[in-house]
């Protein structure tokens, strides 16, 4: 199940994802982004692992930490960046902000409420039954979301109705300052899947091939009428929960040790070791992507801000 995407392709996506976050970081000290910013630096292999398996007809419901998910779904990065940088050219005209990316054409949406995206994915999954097509719905959540009531209610219904829903859990082992091990009644999230009539598997979220294989299986199972799946991808949040988070709750030693296992470096090493690319080629990929994103950011910075006179629109349909 490589979906015709090579490891080098996935590395390329990971580089775009990493550098997209780095570009966003520039907006924080400058106050161009005046609210919270949550980045997923270190979790690239998970989103890159989703690439290639979904169509426009498939839906994806994401979280507060959503940029990489959107990129994986194919959302236009320029519009995303403009939304994050609070411009009128943004994906939502600046009305949403970074936690509220909506791309109806790609059936992508995000929410700032932990767990709330899973019932929305359930609705997308149910729509495929009404339409009788073989589209599926994907919900991406963090480990913390699994303990919300919304997660349980939506998973139970997905299982009871055997709906085509894939839940990808990014288990970075922390929900802000609360460790997964302290919050969960079970050692793993995957082992809970049967209690929702779902297939469950835990994978190494730093290994993009492992994630891709598991995601591909789950998507195939969903399309084939096999019902919901939960993929628990183990990873680590390289930065604070949000930009500005002092992050004193994670030991310095732990942070250094875990950050040393960088999914980009791991993938790079694989590509070189397998002779699929040279150090130089991959450095060139990074350089060109970084340049492209610098250019994108420069352009976004020339975009206009939303017109204050429009602030009262869109409460009700016009």
């Amino acid at each position, binding site marked *: 199940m490589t979906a015709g995407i090579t490891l080098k392709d996935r590395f390329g996506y990971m580089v775009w994802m990493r550098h997209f976050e780095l570009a966003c970081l520039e907006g924080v000290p400058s106050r161009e982004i005046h609210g919270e910013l949550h980045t997923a630096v270190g979790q690239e292999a998970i989103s890159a692992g989703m690439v290639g398996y979904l169509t426009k007809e498939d839906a994806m419901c994401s979280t507060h930490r959503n940029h990489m998910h959107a990129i994986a779904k194919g959302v236009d990065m320029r519009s995303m960046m403009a939304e994050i940088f609070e411009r009128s050219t*943004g994906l939502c005209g600046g009305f*949403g902000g970074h936690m509220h990316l909506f791309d*109806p054409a790609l059936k992508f949406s995000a929410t700032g*409420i932990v767990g*709330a995206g899973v019932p929305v994915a*359930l609705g997308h*999954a149910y729509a495929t039954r009404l339409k009788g097509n073989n589209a599926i719905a994907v919900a991406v959540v963090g480990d913390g979301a699994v303990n919300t009531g919304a997660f349980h209610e939506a998973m139970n*219904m997905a299982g009871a109705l055997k709906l085509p829903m894939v839940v990808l859990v990014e288990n970075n082992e922390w929900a802000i300052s609360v460790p997964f091990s302290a919050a969960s009644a079970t050692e793993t999230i995957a082992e809970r899947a049967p209690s929702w009539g779902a297939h469950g598997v835990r994978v190494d979220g730093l290994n993009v091939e492992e994630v891709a294989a598991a995601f591909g299986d789950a998507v195939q199972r969903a399309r084939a009428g096999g019902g919901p799946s939960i993929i628990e991808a183990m990873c680590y949040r390289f930065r604070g929960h949000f930009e500005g988070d002092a992050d004193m709750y994670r030991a310095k030693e732990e942070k250094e040790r875990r950050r040393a296992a960088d999914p980009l470096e791991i993938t790079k090493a694989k590509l070189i070791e397998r002779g699929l690319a040279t150090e130089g080629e991959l450095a060139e990929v990074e350089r060109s992507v970084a340049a492209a994103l610098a250019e994108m950011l420069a352009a976004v910075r020339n975009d206009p801000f939303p017109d204050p006179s429009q602030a009262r629109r869109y409460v*009700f349909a016009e």
Partner: protein
Amino acid sequence: MARNLNLSQCISEALHLEMERDPSVVVIGEDVGMQGGVFGATRGLQKKFGSTRVVDTPISESAITGMGVGLALEGYRPILEIMFVDFIGVCLDQVYNAIAKNHYMSGGRVRMPIVIKTAGGCIGSGAQHSQCLWGLFAHLPGLKVVAPSNPYDAKGLMASAVESDDPVVFIEHKGLLLKRAEDFTFGSDVPSDRYTVPIGEAKVLRSGNDLTLVTLSGTVAPAMKAAEIVEAAGIGVEVIDLRSVVPLDMKTVAESVAKTGRILVVDEDYLSFGLSAEIVTRLIEAGVNLKSVKRLAVPDVPIPGALSLEEVVVPNAGSIQAAIEEMMGKQ
């Protein structure tokens, strides 16, 4: 001539017509299918349209409401049943953080044509099964809030709610759902064909020159009764049925109060921080001259279990009459 059906049947008739007219309409909730709703307001829908479009769910209101969001994003018009409005607390997040805001947060790119169909009002059963809560929904931007008082409006407003591109919280009154059409003194004639009643237009049910009584839902009938009684004493009460809390038809209310100079708001919801104060304040802001102002509502107490206690906190014809007489200095 009133047809032989009750208010809940009028609602199910509206739903039948909407589902026939528009294949994107689906009904989702507890007991809406096989049973046809605990009050019968969805009767016959599952038999007619199948269990895929009319879905019986587990007791999972967050899943029901979130599912509605996803379905709306897929181009459907979900009607989500929350059996009693009292239960909204378990899923309000999806209602006010997603359903009410997604249109705005997306800069107008997505729409949430969702009906949250629920039953409110007091018919016994105490503090967790007797609330109205329209004041709560009305405070949260992005939701239209409808509460009909009679069969004709119930059917026509439901049609409008389903065809609306905005989310509509449709609050039926438990005490009216099983009441027969012919037992209503107003709105009892219900055409069998489809028709709509526009959302946001209040109705003057009775004209009078001395006092304007504004109310909605279950307290309209007792208000009409009280108005008739005091008429004998020469008091002319103009009774306005708001029909919706959002939008609030202040034009109709202000015109009436400009004439009578007296406003009595009767509200089965809680008194404070709700409908009654909003109406009074908007009248002041509109510069309407007020000789006398009164609010009769549930006096900021939970609904008690025992009837002897309930009777004194929920407005009824007697307490409405007393309020009118007090305002007219007639007691």
